[in-house]
Each structure stands twice: as C-alpha cells, then as structure tokens.
C-alpha cells in the first residue's frame, strides 16, 4: 500500500492544503506553523475512515480535543465559513491497477460528542464504487463511517487500507512513562502513545540467533553504537538489586549495564539516560511487527544529542522502509535533516509556513543535483532560511 495524496480542508490552520507523502515524511516549520495539526488531520482522517469520529476515537489516536467550534478554520479573511471539515486520501494497492480515493466531509459536534458524516465517497480510478451523501435515502447511521457499515465484498480491495490505517496514532513519548514509573493512559498495544509498555515491546524484539543477539532485524551491537555507554540491554522483572524499592514500577523493566562499570552494577530505565529510552522507543515503533503500519511522531528528536539525532533518523528511515510502514514526523533539529537521504523518493521533507492570511502551506523540499554538488548540508540550508520553515526572527 502506498499513500499518494492527502488533502485537508477547513481543519484548524489547514484551510486548503494537500501533499504527496512517501514512506518517511518529515515536517519542519516554525512553532505554530501547523506541523502537529497535519499529524492530527491524518488522525481525524484515520478515525473517519476506519471507525467513527468522537472524543474517544480521536484521543485514542493522540489528537488533541478542542472546543467544537475551533476544529474548523476561523481565519479573519474567511467571510463565508465552510460547513464541513473535508479530508481526502488517495492510495494505491499493488494488486489493483487503479488508485483508490476516499473523500469525507464531516460536521463538527454540536450539542453532543459525535462528528457527523456529511458525505463520503470512495473511488477506484475515476469510478465511484461506494459512499453516501447527506441527501442519500439509505445512508445508515450518519455517526458511523461508511467503511464500518458497508460489507459489500466488491469493496474488499479498497477496504485493505482500513486495516493498515486504523491503528494510526500520534506518538509523543514522555520521559516519566518511558522510565516506567508512570502509567500510560493511552494503553495501545504494543506501545502506548506516550511510551507505555516499552519494556514488553523490547522484550519481544530481543532475540538470540546463531550466537548473536538481535534487536528486531538489527544486531544488538548496532543499537549499542547509538547508546554508546551501554554494554547490555535486557528486560527483566523488577528486583530490589537494581531498582529502589520505593520507586513504582511496571511488571517488566528495561535493564542496562554500563560498560564503564562493573557487570554487577545493573540499573533500569528509571536511572538510564532518557536519550537511550527514546532511541529504543523509536526503533520499537519502526520494527515491531504488531506496531502500527501508519503512525506519527511529534518532536522526533526530543532528548537526542545532535549526532545521535542524525544517526537515529538514518536507522529509523531504513527500518520504516524495510518494514513497509509509513510515518509522519515533526522535528526542530537541523541535524535530523542531515540524516535524510532525499535522493530516495520514499523519504520526503516538507516545510510548513503560514501565508499572509495565516493559512498553513505545505511545501515539499526537493534538492537538485547541482545543489548537492555545491556541498551544502540541509541543516545549513534550513538555518539560513533557504528551505523555509523558520520564524522571521533575525
């Protein structure tokens, strides 16, 4: 499955934008430029397409809940407000010659919690193969998505996207949850949106093959190159010998050995560097077979040293592509850009800026061979303002 195009209309600062995603999609932009809103719009689209849209389904995907009126664009320049929030997804499935498109128009909740389906349409090529409009006679519940209601076997090929898209979530790990001392309220499997269940996820990824220790598909040594102070990483039940008895813990804990210390000086994620936990979390997301196929990470570079950010994004991109996943990321760290191989069309960089009306604009950054030959790193181009996606501060 390849996502080809996402269109968003009348959702917060995204009044009318579209972009063509690859497998790894990195969004840069000033604070308040709308990066996180793009991730939320994809969450809204996922909920609308594969479920229903209400506070529960949005929260499950990590979308911030707003006052109903604020979901729609409220720009000063708009004289006549649109009634609905519009979303569209185009994708292709390797087994079908024609691409699919799903369009949905939603009205925001009024006096209850539920978003209402104003219209939905499903196309294959140019042919409409399903959907309903506000005026349809047989439209079923207007609070439940068409995908959940129409079991027509002819739609089976188009329905495959729902399996992959339904588990979409916006991950934003929190250090305390990664450390295992605070429970994650978003209890998703295999990983919570805020970093819950990391130990369990890691436990299922660590395995020994032919005398070598692996973390998913990677040699453990490759992980330890990034967490360079660690000599060993494993998962165990909490014991007083490596975690203070007064610290609340989960059923399983991540256990580290520091290579500069004696082997007996083991400790858990509670005492470890938070950067190590973020690395493990991101890689588990990218590699875990039960993990989401399509997902987002807000502030990818959080807590990572500059060179680690660059290395991490390189490894992360490889794993996402290898596992045929699709990810949307935001970052403020220029070094993350230097780890992106923009010559690979699966990896795409988007800069976000607001126009004079305040509408968020999404612009894909492509780099010419001539500029590559000039030897300019992406980080410098971004810092110097050449890519956009910066505040107009001097």
């Amino acid at each position, binding site marked *: 499955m390849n996502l080809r195009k996402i269109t968003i209309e009348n959702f917060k600062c995204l009044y009318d934008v579209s972009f063509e995603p690859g497998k790894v999609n990195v969004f840069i932009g000033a604070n308040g430029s709308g990066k996180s809103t793009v991730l939320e719009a994809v969450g809204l689209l996922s909920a609308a397409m594969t479920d229903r849209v209400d506070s529960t389904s949005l929260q499950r995907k990590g979308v911030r809940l707003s006052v109903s009126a604020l979901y729609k664009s409220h720009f000063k320049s708009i004289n006549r407000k649109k009634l609905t929030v519009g979303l569209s997804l185009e994708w292709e499935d390797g087994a079908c010659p024609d691409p699919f498109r799903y369009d949905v128009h939603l009205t925001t909740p009024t006096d209850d919690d539920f978003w209402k389906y104003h219209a939905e349409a499903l196309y294959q090529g140019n042919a409409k193969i399903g959907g309903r409009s506000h005026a349809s006679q047989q439209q079923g519940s207007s609070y439940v998505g068409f995908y959940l209601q129409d079991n027509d076997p002819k739609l089976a090929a188009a329905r495959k996207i729902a399996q992959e898209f339904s588990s979409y979530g916006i991950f934003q790990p929190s250090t305390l949850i990664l450390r295992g001392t605070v429970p994650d309220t978003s209890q998703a499997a295999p990983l919570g949106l805020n970093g819950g269940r990391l130990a369990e996820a890691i436990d299922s990824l660590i395995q020994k093959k032919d005398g070598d220790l692996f973390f998913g598909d990677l040699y453990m*040594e490759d992980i330890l190159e990034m967490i360079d102070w660690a000599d060993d990483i494993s998962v165990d039940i909490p014991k007083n010998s490596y975690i203070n008895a007064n610290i609340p813990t989960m059923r399983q804990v991540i256990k580290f050995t520091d290579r500069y210390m004696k082997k007996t000086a083991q400790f858990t994620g509670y005492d470890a560097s938070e950067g190590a936990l973020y690395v493990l979390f991101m890689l588990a997301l990218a590699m875990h077979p039960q993990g989401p196929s399509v997902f987002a990470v807000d502030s990818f570079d959080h807590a990572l040293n500059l060179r680690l950010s660059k290395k991490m994004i390189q490894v992360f991109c490889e794993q996402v592509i290898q596992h045929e996943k699709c990810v949307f990321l935001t970052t403020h760290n220029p070094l993350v850009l230097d780890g992106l191989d923009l010559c690979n069309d699966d990896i795409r960089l988007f800069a976000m800026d607001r126009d004079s009306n305040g509408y968020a604009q999404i612009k894909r950054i492509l780099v010419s*061979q001539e500029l590559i030959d000039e*030897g300019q790193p992406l980080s410098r181009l971004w810092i110097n303002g050449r890519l956009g996606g910066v505040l107009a501060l001097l």
Partner: protein
Amino acid sequence: MKHIGIVCEGPTDFVILSRVIDTITKELNCYLRLQPEENCAGQYGNGWKGVLKWCRDHADIKNLFMQGVAPALDFLVIQMDGDVSRKDKPSHCLCASVMCEKKIKRDPLNYPIDCDTTTCPVVLPCEDHAPPVDGYRTHLKGLIAAALRETDRTCIVIPCDSTEAWVIAAYDSPANVEQLEAPWENVIARGKSYHGIRIPGQKKRARIFEEFAPVVCENWEKVKQLCQSAQDFEQSIHTIVAAASQ
C-alpha cells in the same frame, strides 16, 4: 593532558588513534572528533573525501578554529588510510603524470560526478608514487598538506593499508603487514570472530575496535616495528608535543 582534535575517516579510526596517542604521550588526553558537514545527499561527512573536505573548509581558519574556543586545541591529527592512494583514482586527479583535459577544472571531491570512470586517464598504481606503501603515504600526506596549506601543530597519519593493519600487527605480527590489501575484509572479518572478539555481521563497529585498542597499545612497540606508518605517527606526535611544551 592535551586537547586534541582528530579528523579521521570513521569512528573506528578515532578509537585506535585516540588510545594510541594516550600510549605515546603516557597520559589520558581529551579528544574531539571533528567532522565535516555533509552535503544534501549525505556525502563527505566521513571517508577520505570527508577528511579532505574538512581540511579545505578549515584551511583559512585553522588556527582560529583551534584557538578561538576554550579550551583551545593543542594540536590536530588528520588521518587518511593508505588504501585511498591504492584504489581511489580521484586521489590522483592532480598528479603530474596524469594527462587529463579536465585536470584544471575538475575537483577530485566531485569525482565521479564530472568524470566517466571507464575513460578516466588515471592509471593505478599511479607512477608518481612508487614504491607502493611509502608512495601512498607521501602522496596522501601531500594531498592533505596542500588542502590545509600549512601544517603547523598538525600531525598527518596515513596507516597502510588502513588502521586495521595496526590491529593485525598487534595480534598476528605478520611480515609486510602494511602491504596486505583490505585487512578488514581479508583478515579480521573473514570469520565470525577475530582472536575471540565477535564480529557480528562482519560489520566494522567502534565497539569492536575498543576491544582491539588495548591490544594495539600493549603491543605498540611491535606495531611500530612492523608498520612504518605507526613509527612515523609516534615521531610526529613527539615532535608536536615537544614543540607545544616549549
């Protein structure tokens, strides 16, 4: 304790060089791994072209770069493996014997973007730098020195065929170890382990070299006997340290 900046081809070289310098100076020094900026395609951040690019990019400001941040750098170490001269045609673009019409215009760092590798007039081994190992060292030292323009408080080290030759010299002590081509592929990573140190996936990793480093340091006298590049390196470090302490 000295503050030393190291510009090298990769992280494994950094591990060996820093430990060996500690052995030579008989003290624990403070090291900075200096790295060139990559271009948009992620090129020239490491490898010999990265090293050469760093030298060029910093030629004008080298002294200021070393002194302008506290703590200042006492000296620089620039490393490039000798195999570059053996197998990389662009490192010979500017050699006297090379008859190439693009010679003035083209930049070896952009090779092969500007050039067709099949019709490139560079012939290896380059006749300007025979015999092999000494020639490689002289040539690459010249290339780096030309890029830097001046080499004050700078030690240029060219392990031949690569830093791995020092590791093999320390462990196995074969004769003519510097003439052994591709020592990583042909010796160290041939099996699943080398002298009991596992080489998962035959991949070079800094962590593996951290296990090699103490053996290289313990056997440094032997490494010097077998590797002219090691002997040159020690001499160069002594000279710079002596000059710095005057």
